[in-house]
């Protein structure tokens, strides 16, 4: 007699005789959280998404131009401070205040644009990329960045316990764990020394993105958490205005201690329509392509399109990811290559690769395959 595993799995999921948990707290649902808590999380996520997307489209681009004129072009830093200070103050750091008086510098607080993969015969893992004080040139108005800070005592203890078993020759070992010690970190953006944007950590931490780094030889542990920070002015009943183009400085701040990192440079480029208007005839209409200069397009075998688009910012790949957000999932290319991803739409597989031309201009190569 054989065992029907598929049917057994279906029965296991759809069983109706599950006993009631007598230890469940009042208000707890079958998924382990109250509906009210879930609704609150959904609302926060929607706010973050809306503010990040608020600059998409012709109308929003016009509004952005207006903001740029009012805040930067015509009135200068003093009015920028007034504008920021008049916004609702729900952030950990006071908007409109000089950065120098709101925080002390903590060298252990850092920002990193990406984490890199390291390989050796004994181990592989993730490490913080070499320090850089430049966060790049962004066309979009979302800063995707890793905040690095002090892990909580519990995480430190767990990391240390696992690290002691590392084999001779390895210097670092890694694990992944939720860590409120860094997931509460906030990013603050300043212009001309004044805070103009302050994130709410609860809405910016990317779920399940915490990486813990334990250095066996040095006996130290640090933790990094991925943040997706909307670059909007401090207002916040759901949304300030997208920050205008210009040069800014960003800091990661520990709301618990008030300490901040040293400054990181951030240049925001003018922000136009997010989607490329001059797509070649016949290109699938359900595949959004980031705005830029179309360098090359070709179709092969009637099923595969290749487009090369030159973009101005260093955030082309993340902008492409957001435009394709309607897709169900993003799959990083094999081997941990963070310069490329593939996703699957209803009628096409889309691979996007970020590279740089010989002249140093960033480009995105789209490969779209239809069945």
């Amino acid at each position, binding site marked *: 007699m054989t065992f029907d595993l598929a049917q057994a799995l279906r029965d*296991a999921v759809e069983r109706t005789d599950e006993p009631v948990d007598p230890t469940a707290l009042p208000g707890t649902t079958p998924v382990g959280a109250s509906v009210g808590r879930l609704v609150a999380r959904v609302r926060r*996520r929607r706010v973050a*998404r809306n503010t990040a997307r608020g600059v998409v489209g012709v109308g929003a681009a016009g509004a952005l131009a207006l903001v740029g004129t009012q805040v930067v072009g015509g009135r200068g830093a003093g009015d920028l401070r007034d504008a920021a200070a008049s916004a609702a103050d729900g952030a950990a750091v006071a908007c409109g205040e000089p950065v120098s008086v709101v925080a002390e510098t903590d060298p252990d607080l850092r920002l990193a644009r990406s984490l890199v993969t390291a390989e050796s015969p*004994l*181990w592989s893992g993730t490490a913080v990329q070499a320090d850089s004080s430049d966060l790049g040139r962004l066309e979009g108005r979302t800063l995707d960045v890793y905040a690095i800070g002090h892990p909580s005592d519990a995480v430190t203890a767990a990391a240390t316990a696992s690290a002691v078993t590392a084999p001779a020759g390895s210097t670092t070992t890694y*694990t*992944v764990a939720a860590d409120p010690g860094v997931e509460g970190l906030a990013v603050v953006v300043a212009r001309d020394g004044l805070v103009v944007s302050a994130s709410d950590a609860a809405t910016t931490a990317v779920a399940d*993105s915490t*990486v813990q780094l334990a250095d066996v030889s040095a006996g130290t542990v640090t933790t990094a958490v991925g943040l997706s920070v909307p670059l909007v002015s401090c207002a916040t009943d759901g949304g300030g205005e997208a920050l205008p183009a210009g040069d800014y400085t960003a800091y990661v701040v520990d709301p618990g201690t008030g300490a901040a990192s040293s400054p990181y440079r951030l240049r925001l480029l003018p922000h136009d329509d997010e989607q490329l208007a001059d797509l070649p005839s016949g290109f699938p209409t359900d595949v959004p392509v980031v705005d830029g200069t179309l360098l090359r397009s070709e179709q092969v075998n009637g099923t595969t399109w290749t487009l090369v688009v030159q973009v101005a910012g260093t955030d082309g790949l993340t902008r492409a990811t957001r435009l394709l957000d309607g897709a169900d999932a993003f*799959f990083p290319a094999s081997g941990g290559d963070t310069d490329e991803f593939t996703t699957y739409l209803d009628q096409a597989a889309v691979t996007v690769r970020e590279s740089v031309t010989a002249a140093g201009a960033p480009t995105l190569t789209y490969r779209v395959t239809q069945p």
Partner: protein
Amino acid sequence: MADWEEVLDDLVHERGPALVRYAALLTGSTRDAEDLVQDALVRTFAQGRPLRDTAAAEAYVRRAVFTVFLDGYRRRRLWTEVRHLLARDDALDGHDQSASDRLDVQAALATLRPRLRACVVLRYYDDLTVPEIARQLGLSDGTVKRYLSDAIGALEAVLGPVPAPADLHTVTLLPTGSRR
């Protein structure tokens, strides 16, 4: 209360247990499954889709459970691939308990290493083909086949013979020799 909030409320209470049990097949832990379902619910309803009935919403959430699980799987993969070189895998700690005492499929699944368990669920519950599983998990076809073989071997020791699932794309041979 907004429409989506009512749908969320209904979905959590009516289908929450089934969603958690599905997620538990992947995670091997009810606690992790609850977290996974919560994240999937938040991700789905934060998209702003016009979700007006629980059946449609459940389909999206079930897909999101799968996606969130895979996202976490990929992040953990680098570590889990080498962790056995550094320390004993926690997931194997339950192996000393006699699996033969557990005739329950969930208990049998729980004895598998996470990557093997994921392959089994994707193959036998989600009806994915080997190439599809390989693509989703970022593995080669051969590795997935080996994982499935190892997993089924372990499950058969507890559950008895487990036949291979029918291929999703069955080719029917007709007497004329043509195919359809």
